[in-house]
C-alpha cells in the first residue's frame, strides 16, 4: 500500500488511486506518420529498468487527477509526482 503524494490532496493511500500503466512517451500527434516499428515500440515496449520508471496513476477516489509518477520499482521509493503527462 504505497503512500502517494497527490500534488493536490497530499499524501494518500494507494487504495484511493487507480494504476494507469507505464507512462509511454507522449502519443504521436499523427500516428499515421510514424513507421510500423516505431508504433509497435511506442505501444508495447515500456520502460522496465531496475530503478525509477515513469507510470500513470489516477487519484480516482480522490481529486480525479491523472498523475505521472516516477517510482523506483526495486524499492517503491517515489521520486516525483506531477499532474498530467
Amino acid at each position, binding site marked *: *500500500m*504505497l*503512500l502517494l503524494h497527490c500534488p493536490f490532496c497530499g499524501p494518500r493511500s494507494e487504495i484511493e488511486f487507480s494504476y494507469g500503466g507505464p507512462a509511454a512517451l507522449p502519443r504521436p500527434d499523427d500516428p*499515421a506518420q510514424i513507421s510500423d516499428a516505431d*508504433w*509497435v515500440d511506442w505501444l508495447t515496449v515500456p520502460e522496465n529498468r531496475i530503478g525509477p520508471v515513469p507510470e500513470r496513476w489516477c487519484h*480516482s477516489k480522490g481529486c*480525479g487527477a491523472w498523475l505521472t509518477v516516477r517510482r523506483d520499482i526495486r*524499492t517503491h521509493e517515489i521520486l516525483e509526482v506531477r*499532474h498530467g503527462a
Partner: protein
Amino acid sequence: MAPERLAEGGRIDRRRVLRFRFDGREMTGHPGDTLASALLANGVRIVTRSFKYHRPRGIMGSGAEEPAALVALAGSAAQGNVVPTMLPLTEGLDVRSIHGWPSVRFDLGAVAGLFSRLIPAGFYYKTFMWPDWHLFEPTIRKAAGLAPAPEAAPEGRYETRNAHCDLLVVGAGPAGLMAALTAARANARVMLVDEGIEAGGNLLARKVEIDGGPAMDWVARAVAELAQRPNVTHLQQATAWGWREHGLVMVQQRAPGHPGLIERGWRVRAGHVICATGAIERMIVFPGNDRPGVMLASAMQAYVNRWGVRPGQRAVIFTNNDSAHEVARDLRAAGVELAAVIDSREGVEAADLPLRAGYQVQRSFGHAGLRGVEIAPVGGGPAARINCDLLAVSGGWTPAVHLHSQSRGSLRWDDAIAAFRPDPVAQSSASVGAADGRFGMTQALQSGAEAVAAYLGLAVPDTPRATEQPYNIAPLWSVPGKGKAFVDLMNDVTLDDIALADREGYGAVEHAKRYTTSGMALDQGKTGNVNVIGILAGLQGKTPDQVGVTTFRAPYTPVSFGSIAGGKAGPGVLPFRHTPLTGWHMAKGAVMYEAGARWRRPGYYPRAGESFQQTVDREARAVREGVAIYDGAPLGVYAIEGPDALRLIEHACTARYGTLTPGMGRYGLMLTEDGLIFDDGVTFRLSEDRFLMSCSTGNADAVGLHLEKILQIDRPDWRVHVTNLTHQWMNATICGPLARDVLGRLTDMDLSTAAFPFMGLREGLVAGLPARVARVSFTGELSYEINVLPRDLQSLWTALLQAGAPEQITPIGSEANHVLRVEKGFLSLGHEADGTVDPYDLGMGWAMARKKGDFIGLRSVLLRRRSGQPRRELVGLIPEDPGADMPEGAPITPGGKRMASEGLVTACVHSASLGRRVGLALLVDGRTRIDKVVQVRLPDRCIAARVVAPVFHDPEGLRMRG
C-alpha cells in the same frame, strides 16, 4: 496450588484461581500466567510429540521464540498450533497436545523413530519413486500437518483500523518505553505496541534495578505516564508482524477488549519507526538438546521470577556468554539446586557460582524428561555425568531484526556480540536497545531516548541509571557427538541434516533451509537459524556473514487470517450496488445476476410452474409482441461539454459525431490503443458543445478514467468537462410494439416518429416527473429509455406498470434481453467482443472507414489488418437441427475434426419468435462463407450449422425505427 508453584514472588495473582484442562486433566493457574507457565507449574513436562521423529517435547522458551511446544485448543476458541508461551491463561481453556502422527492404524511415528537413519534431510527426494509417489503420498500426507483444520468459523468478528502516528515504537521493554516517553513528552503522536501481556520486556523476568529501585516500578511509572497522555496509544498483546513500504506497519492486537471482537488489526502508517524489539536467546546444538527439561536460560529465569514457577529441582546451566550467570543466581534464589554452570569459555570466573569454565555439555540423558547431562572440556578430555532435571542453555543473544529486515534494512555481522545487527535503515526508522545489539540496560534506555531525540531534533534527555551487567561471548554453535542434535525442533532438523545438505551441494544457506526445512516451521527459526549459519560457516571455513542469512519475511509470528482480512470478509469482499429498484426485483422473485461493476440485476422473473426456458420465452415474446419493461439504471452516463467536446468524443470513439444534430444520438465503439474493442454505447448531442455519452454498465467507471486520461495526459489543451451522471440519471426502459401507446398515457410529449425519431432524445415530463427520453433499442423493438432522477425511478416504474397493465406490461431480465439482442445480432461485450476483435470483425468497419483523421485504436487496427492473416468475423449460425443447442463457447473446427478451431459459437439462444435456436459465431473469413455449413465440435458429437448473416429478426430495423 499447583505442585511446582513457588509460595511467593512473580507477577501472578495467587488469590484468584483459573481452572483449565490439559489432555483432559484438570489443572489450575492464576491470572498473570501464560499457558506455558501454568503447565510448568503443574509439572507438565511433555507438551507435544515431534513432527518427524515422534520425540517428546516440552516447553523451552518463554515468549514468541518458543521453538518446540505447540498445543491445540478445543471448545469455542478452537485452533491448532498454539504457542503456549504466548497465550494468557484464561478460565476454562481446554488444551490438547498435538501428536504429529495421528494415525494409530499405521503409526509411521514409531517407525520413524526406529528407522530415523533412513530419513535424513532430503530423503523424500531419493525414494518413494517406484512405482509412483502417489502410492505413498496419502500416508505421508496423513502424517504431516500438526493440528486439525478448524471445523467451523469462530463466533465473533474481526476489525481493522487505520492509524497514523509520528512515531511507532515496537516493543515496550526498557528501550521502547524510554523511546515512547521521550516522544510523548515532546508531544509527538506516538503509538507503542508490544506483543507481551504486559509492558516491561525482559525486565518482567529479571530482578534488576532502574533509578535505584526495582525496574518494574520504573516500568509502572512509565506506563502510567503514557496512559495519561492523549497523544499516546499503547497496546499490549499487539504484535507488529509486517512492515510494508512507506512506513506501513501491520499490528495484530489479540485482546482488543471489545465485546464480540476476536482480534483487531491495525494498519499503522508511521512517520518513523523505532524497533525496540529486544533480542532472542539462542540454543547451543548438542545431542539430546531437545529433551524436556532443556530450556533457554532466559526462559527458565522468566519462569522463576515472573511466574513463580520452579520448572525443576536441580539445574545445570550451559552457556557461552555472561547472561546466563545472572540466571544461575536467580534460580538458586528461587530454591532450585544449582548443580553446575558449564561455560564454554576458557578463563571465565564467577566466585559465587559452581562454574566449569572451558567445558561443554556433550549430550543429555533421560527418557521422557531430562535426567542428567554429560560434560567434557571443550578441547576434548574426560567426560563426566551430572544428574539434573533442568538444563538452562544460552548460546548468546540475537537482536530481533525481523522488522528491520522486512523494511529492507540490511544487516552486518558483529564479532563482538557474535550476531547480526541492523546496519543502514531503508525506511525512516531506528533500532534501539537489544534489537540494535546493545545488550546493556543503561544502553537500552539511552539508545531509546537518543533515537527519538535524533528524529525529532531534540536535545537528548537524561535517562535513568540501571543495573549493568557485562556481555561477553565466545560463539559456540554446536557440540557434535552421537545422537540427534536439533537445529530446528519443530521440523526435527538435526546437525547431521545440515552436514548432509552441505555435503550434497546444498550448502548455500537458502539451499540448506529448503533441503532440510530448517527455519520453515511455525517459529521460523527464531532461536536456531543463527546456529545453522554458524554451523555452515564452520563446515565451509567461512565467516557467518559470508554464509549470510535467509530472508526475514512477514509475519514475525503467525497471524490469524481473520485478523488480516478484518472487516473485509463477508460483504466487504466485494461491495454490492443496488438500484432504486433492487428491492422491487427481489420482492418479485427475480433471479439476480452479477452484472458487472458490482451491480446485481434481474436475470429473469420466474412465475410459479414455469421452466427457465418458458420464463425467458414469455419475457422475450412480450417485447416482440406487446410491451415489456426493464431496469436500466446501471447504464453508464457521462455529460461531456465544452468547445472541444466533439473532438474528445471523436478521438475516443469510432463513429463520427460532427454531423449529429442536437437531440439525436449515434452508436459507436470505443477501442483501446491496441485496436481492440473496449466498450460501446450511444452518444447524444444536446447542443453544439454538449453531449451525453452512455457506456456499458461494467465499464462505466473505466470509461470515465479513460476519458479523463485523454484530457489530462494527452490533450491538456482541450477545453472539455466530463461529468459522471451514472447516478444522476437512471432509466427504466419500455420496449415492444405497444410501448408508444403505454408511454403516451403518461406524457404529453409528441411521440410520433416524425417528432421523436429513432435515436432521438427528448426532454419532458413522464408521469409528472422530469425525464429525458431516448429512443434507443438494444432489443430491436420500438423502445424508450426513460431517464429520471434516481429518487423518481420507483414512481416512474410504478406508473409505467400501471399504465401498461392493460397490455400486461412484462418486466424482463437480462436473459430475455440476451435472446433479443442475439436475434438482432447486436454485439455483447464478453460474448462477441471477447477482447480479441476489432470493429471490422464485427461488421462495423463502416463507422471507421467514413472517418477522417486519427482516433484511438485506428493505427493499430490498420496495422494488424495489413498482416494479411485471416480474421474471425461475426456471423449468424442456424443449427440444421432447429432444436440443437450449440453451447456458447463451443469451437467450430474444419470439418468437425478434433483439431485447432476456426471459430467459436459466441451465443446461442432459443428464439421464441422464430421457434428455433439461433446463434452467433466468430468464424474465420465468416462473411465469405454465408450459406455454407460448418461443424460445431463438441466432445461427443458435432452440430452442423448453416452460416447466415448475423441478424435473424427485422433485418431492416423497421420495427425499432418505426
